[in-house]
């Protein structure tokens, strides 16, 4: 069985563009949550989101004519990861390289735009490029085209766990010899009127904090009210260890375990059992036991249901040791990037090992008795011996995905 290593990182996120800026901001407890800048915000009940600020031309030279925002963010993150990995593939290498991306709602931004044109502006036609912007596999396709990657080019959509699934499936394909290199991650662009209104209606989005909007997402806190919707993309380069070694690649860490389960229970409600099994499967594949995990990047959505269920599931997997593992929800700062959430949090997990540091759960000042683990409240920790990290992603639809990275 082949081993799989992480050799490149790229991020466009509300908490910073590029891995270094992201991690620095999280360690400093800086929030990417703010009032929505779009004029449609006046028609929303909840007017906060975690938006990204970037220009595609800062990362790659190409026109945005045919690119939905999801594709633009994915290409910007991929450009960072590709350059960071220092990889150069010949024709034989390109055939053995694939793209694995996750997205929850695909080209929702472009769909919002054409819907507005048709229904509100009463236009009789829309751009001929609408379909190629809206289709969910466009971001992966643009990466494949951009770098000439001719192996599998796949898009996974499992709501909030989409990009953890994408990274996990890429890991498996390398591990079992189906490809040697994978560009994997996720992208999401849902900060628009239609998407925000739909999420708002579901009742899982955080109410704006009356004093400071940037503190509205309060995972594991007694006064939590849900998550703040965010946008962004994160992409990593994964390689077979021998391929990476041969070219003398810089290796961040090893991706050693992936657990994938379904709750088979409810379209929005989570289960302890489904999450517990996903964590155990990931530990089993990584070949480590519960004592070896030094940090858990929680799914931590700050919904009433998630935080209690995830806490209980962690306790079932880790027993008494659960109380001694730092568990943090960085969603408190970067928001919930839905189909890109797992990938951003995977990058954070890799950086926790790299930096020997754990970012905090911010806005946690009123403990919930049912959430009694060490959530690294409000201040990050440095100088820790972080060797193995678990990253949890649990989704509407019940698709759970857990990834484990370890020091290399």
């Amino acid at each position, binding site marked *: 069985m082949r081993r799989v290593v992480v050799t490149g990182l790229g991020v466009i996120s509300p908490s910073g563009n590029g891995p270094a800026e992201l991690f620095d901001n999280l360690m400093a407890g800086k929030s990417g949550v703010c009032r929505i800048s779009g004029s449609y915000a006046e028609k929303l009940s909840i007017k906060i989101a975690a938006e990204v600020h970037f220009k595609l031309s800062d990362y790659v030279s190409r*026109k945005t*004519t045919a690119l939905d925002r999801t594709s633009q963010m994915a290409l910007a993150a991929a450009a960072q990861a590709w350059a960071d990995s220092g990889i150069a593939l010949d024709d034989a290498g390109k055939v053995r390289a694939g793209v694995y991306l996750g997205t929850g709602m695909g080209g929702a931004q472009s769909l919002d735009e054409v819907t507005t044109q048709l229904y509100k502006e009463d236009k009789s036609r829309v751009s001929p490029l609408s379909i190629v912007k809206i289709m969910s596999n466009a971001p992966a396709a643009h990466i494949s085209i951009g770098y000439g990657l001719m192996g599998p080019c796949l898009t996974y959509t499992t709501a909030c766990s989409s990009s953890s699934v994408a990274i996990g499936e890429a890991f498996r394909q390398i591990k079992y010899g189906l490809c040697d290199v994978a560009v994997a991650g996720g992208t999401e662009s849902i900060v628009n009127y239609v998407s925000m209104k739909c999420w708002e209606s579901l009742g899982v989005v955080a109410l704006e904090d009356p004093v400071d909007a940037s503190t509205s997402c309060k995972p594991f806190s007694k006064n939590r009210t849900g998550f703040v919707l965010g946008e962004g993309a994160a992409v990593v380069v994964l390689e077979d260890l021998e391929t990476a070694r041969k070219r003398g690649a810089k290796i961040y860490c090893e991706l050693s375990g992936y657990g994938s389960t379904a709750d088979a229970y409810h379209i929005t409600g989570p289960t302890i059992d489904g999450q517990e099994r996903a964590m155990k499967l990931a530990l089993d594949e990584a070949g480590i036991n519960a004592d070896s995990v030094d940090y858990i990047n929680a799914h931590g959505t700050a919904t009433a249901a998630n935080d209690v269920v995830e806490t209980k599931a962690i306790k079932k997997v880790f027993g008494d040791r659960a109380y001694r593992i730092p568990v943090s929800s960085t969603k408190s700062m970067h928001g919930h990037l839905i189909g890109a959430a797992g990938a951003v949090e995977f990058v954070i997990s890799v950086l926790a090992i790299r930096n020997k540091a754990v970012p905090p759960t911010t806005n946690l000042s009123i403990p919930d008795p049912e959430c009694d683990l060490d959530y690294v409240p409000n201040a990050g920790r440095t100088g820790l011996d972080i060797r193995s990290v678990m990253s949890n992603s649990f989704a509407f639809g019940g698709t759970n995905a857990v990834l484990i990275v370890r020091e290399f």
Partner: protein
Amino acid sequence: MTTLERIEKLFVDKLELNRDLLTPQSTLESFGIDSLDKIEFLFALEDEFKIKIPERDVKIDTVQDVVDMVDRLVAEQSAAG
């Protein structure tokens, strides 16, 4: 605005081209426009000038070709209307 000026504005707004590069003699090829860009641009021309461009594979090599085509179609279609 003249037809040329309106077309130059579309090139800048829709295809993110640098206005300094645009002259009547500039070729579309020199702008690095691919087939999808061309489709989007023709669509934008139809909207801007309220015309119908009958063939999507219309031969337009230079900015001046675009101006000539638009002037011709505006004349033809407004006469027909």
